[in-house]
């Protein structure tokens, strides 16, 4: 067991405090927060960690990550994804079940959880599938998966197209108070599409995915959730109208939460030039009006959660023409620096809202223990250096894949340490 | 030396004399042939036109044509911009014609080589002769003028510029040393 550590001299922000305040944190040998107050004098036998100039944030949580294991270990593994999470400041992630085979049974949930404990530096939870094999035909063993540790269910990557089956899934999951998360689109409307349908797809001559494909599906799922009464979570909302439908359902008493990805806040279809496949994802990048509406939704609380939809693909796969390339970009290592540089630093996104959406709310929705600075809790926070920078390249990234529009860029701000219990996950090279 | 750093080699009256002498020599060489005069774009065509007018004034009936050798150059790879193509205009049958080719300056000979290549693509002339206003030497191909205005010794890197009223507003031949350039 290690020595107690005192993190001193830093400024802290959390879900209730947008403005950085002085906070020293004493973590005892068991990895629990013994004291947290503006100034703590170092005692004998305590290792002092100088946090001057750094910002302390509660550990981030990403409830939408594709780890690709089992099946596509060339794209990502639970180990590499877990390391990428730590590098990005995440102290907890939820693996999506669209692996090969899909995580649709208690046995597979246990397998993933076991691998995660062995190989990932940060805790990895997993989602189970809604339907067996994600095939949309019959329900997966929902209760069994939950018993083995699945924290939610989703067929992410595809909607449950059969409305009857989806209704039964919501009702059944409600029995176990299990969250049902939805990837919303109407397959018949999206089929063949490569990007948002509109002026940009016209200019590039690419087949479009209309916004209403997502909106119709959101509306359907929310009406079914009202009928079934369960807890529903809309994944990666990307359009202003889709968000508006969710707002109305919330006001109407539907137990719905929703998430937005950093790329849908930061990028729009206008950024797609020269057919760069690192801008191809599903839902696609929408218009700048949508981007603005999503940020407003995050600020006013209509959007509960930030989630990366980290979707690794190899260079081999992404190095295709735009229409043939797979959907998805990675996000674990780019999320915090990109949000910080584009929105936080510019005053458009306060720290407390970022932390609510990227730490407190996803943990609360999934019934997991919060990460905050409360005395008596296990240490679960990160040190962020706003004066440093993060260079995103093959040499610096932990993910096995590089499919991000930020590749090659240097973004302001850097996660310099992740404190999880008695562990320092990013090594000791502190300046 | 003029204020532009150029040395004037031939002034307007001298140019007029040279062109008249070329016309006279052509008449002397070809007392009774029917001729076709072909000028290379741009200033070769001007020179050609002037000789054509002189011949016509002396009652000689000749044909006139222009040649754009852009598509026959051998240095396309090195050009950052391509010359605008104006096209060639040969309104007489090239087959069997007595052709006199005109250019303003004879230098490496590559332009003339290109012009010869192009002419024979229109047909098989009976004979082609060459008339130039200035021969500045440094030939890279075995080409020599049949009618010459003036031979001027130059350095390889010198720049010789011919100006005509029709294209440049005044007549003159100028030489620029690279060292004299601003």
């Amino acid at each position, binding site marked *: 067991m290690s020595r107690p550590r005192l993190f001193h001299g830093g400024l802290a922000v959390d879900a209730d405090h947008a403005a950085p305040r002085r906070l020293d944190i004493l973590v005892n040998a068991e990895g629990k927060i013994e004291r947290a107050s503006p100034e703590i004098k170092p005692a004998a036998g305590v290792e002092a960690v100088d946090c001057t100039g750094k910002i302390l944030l509660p550990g981030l949580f990403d409830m939408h990550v594709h780890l690709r294991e089992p099946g596509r270990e060339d794209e990502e593994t639970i180990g590499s994804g877990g390391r990428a999470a730590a590098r990005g400041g995440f102290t907890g992630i939820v693996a999506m079940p669209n692996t090969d085979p899909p995580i649709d049974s208690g046995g597979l949930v246990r397998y993933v959880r076991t691998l995660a404990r062995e190989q990932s530096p940060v805790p990895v939870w997993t989602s189970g599938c809604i339907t067996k094999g994600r095939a949309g035909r019959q329900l997966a063993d929902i209760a069994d998966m939950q018993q083995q540790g699945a924290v939610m269910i989703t067929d992410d990557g595809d909607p449950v197209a059969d409305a009857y089956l989806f209704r039964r899934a919501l009702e059944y999951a409600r029995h176990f108070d299990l969250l049902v998360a939805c990837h919303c689109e109407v397959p018949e409307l999206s089929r063949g599409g490569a990007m948002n*349908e*509109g002026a940009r797809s*016209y200019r590039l001559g690419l087949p*479009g995915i209309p916004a209403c494909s997502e909106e119709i599906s959101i509306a359907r799922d929310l009406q079914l959730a009202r009928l079934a009464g369960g807890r529903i979570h809309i994944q990666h909302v990307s359009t202003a109208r889709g968000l508006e439908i969710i707002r109305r359902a919330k006001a109407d008493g539907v137990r719905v939460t929703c998430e937005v990805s950093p790329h849908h806040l930061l990028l729009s279809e206008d950024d797609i030039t020269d057919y760069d496949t690192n801008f191809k994802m599903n839902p696609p990048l929408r218009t700048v009006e949508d981007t603005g509406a999503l940020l407003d939704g995050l600020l006013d609380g209509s959007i509960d959660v930030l989630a990366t939809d980290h979707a690794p693909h190899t260079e081999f796969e992404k190095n295709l023409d735009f229409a043939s390339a797979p959907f998805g970009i990675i996000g674990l290592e780019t999320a915090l620096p990109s949000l910080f540089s584009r929105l936080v630093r510019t005053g458009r996104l306060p720290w407390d809202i970022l932390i609510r959406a990227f730490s407190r709310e996803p943990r609360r929705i999934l019934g997991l223990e919060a990460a905050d600075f409360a005395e008596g809790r296990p240490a679960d926070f990160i040190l962020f250096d706003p004066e440093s920078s993060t260079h995103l390249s093959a040499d610096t990234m932990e993910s096995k894949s590089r499919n991000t529009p930020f590749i090659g860029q240097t973004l302001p701000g850097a996660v310099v340490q992740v404190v999880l219990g008695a562990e320092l996950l990013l090594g000791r090279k502190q300046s | 030396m003029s204020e532009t750093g150029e040395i004037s080699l031939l002034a307007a009256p001298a140019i007029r004399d040279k062109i008249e002498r070329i016309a006279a020599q052509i008449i002397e060489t070809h007392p009774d042939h029917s001729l076709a005069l072909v000028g290379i774009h741009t200033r070769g065509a001007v020179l050609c036109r002037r000789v054509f007018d002189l011949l016509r004034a002396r009652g000689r009936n000749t044909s006139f044509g222009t040649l754009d050798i852009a598509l026959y150059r051998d240095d396309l790879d090195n050009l950052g*911009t391509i010359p605008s193509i104006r096209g060639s205009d040969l309104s007489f049958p090239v087959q069997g014609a007595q052709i006199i080719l005109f250019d303003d300056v004879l230098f490496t000979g590559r332009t003339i080589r290109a012009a010869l290549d192009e002419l024979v693509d229109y047909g098989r002339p009976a004979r082609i002769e060459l008339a130039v206003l200035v021969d500045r030497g440094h030939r890279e191909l075995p080409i020599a003028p049949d009618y010459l205005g003036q031979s001027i010794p130059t350095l390889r890197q010198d720049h010789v510029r011919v100006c005509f009223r029709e294209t440049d507003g005044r007549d003159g031949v100028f030489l620029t040393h690279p060292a004299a350039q601003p």
Partner: protein
Amino acid sequence: MNTVAAPARRKDLLDIESLAPEEIVFLLDSARPFKDLFDRSVKKVPALRGKTVLNLFFEPSTRTRASFEIAAKRLSADVTNLAITQSSVSKGESILDTVDTMQSMKVDYMVVRHAAAGVPAFIARHTPAAVINAGDGNHAHPTQALLDAFTMREAVGELAGRRILLVGDLLHSRVFRSVSTVARKLEMEVGIFAPTTLIPSGRPDYMQAFNTFEEALEWSPDFIYLLRLQRERQAAHFFPSLREYHHVFGLTRERFLACRRRGIRIMHPGPVNRGVELVDEVLTYEHCLINRQVENGIAARMAVLYWLQPAVTPLPDDKEEVAS
């Protein structure tokens, strides 16, 4: 003499949208002398002697390929045709493999056609060869647009202020996108007439849409450009039947007579579906420009090949030097 400075040469021609109007005009002006060459006894010029042009067609097209082949040969280039069917190459990685293979053969120009938008751009990024887009998905067909603009100029002179009406399957048409763009850049007015199912969303708002053919004729277009209708569109519910399509959206005999009275020029990128887009008689009409479009395609493509400049080929890689 009109000696406007020639625009800087480009490596690739991928679409019309990225061309400045001056570049378009320059290419149209240059196409003229190329066309004049066709009347000479020797139709060839040595401009591209020693260069190799690869026709890389992932989608079958005998006409466009032949047009590029003749254009390249009249510039004295060597031409290689490579037709690759979709079944043997469906993934881009194989496209890259193909491009790499061709690169080792030191190809100077690649003429690329593919069913997916963006493939020529993708290839252009991976080769020093000059790449010409010969049609990619619904994106662009720039040489078609250039030859059409050339043909229109040849027919009426200055195009600014002239009107072109594009009719038919606009949605699945790269020709529509490129021709409307070139028309816009040459300050023409653009009208469209098509079933609503075949009008792409996101189109620019300078296009004036008409509800009936008769209404469109009242607009007095100088040119009517009929787009080819793929018969299989019927199966995807874009319109109920070819008969109904022709009746409502085709150039029927009656409408053709109205066009003839007004001297409207008729164009079509070919091949024509007789009895669908137009009636037979159109093809013998004095202002039918369809055959001229084909002829002018060669001159326009010669102008493009002549203008483009392949990048400096990188040094031969080490493998080759070791091997030799």
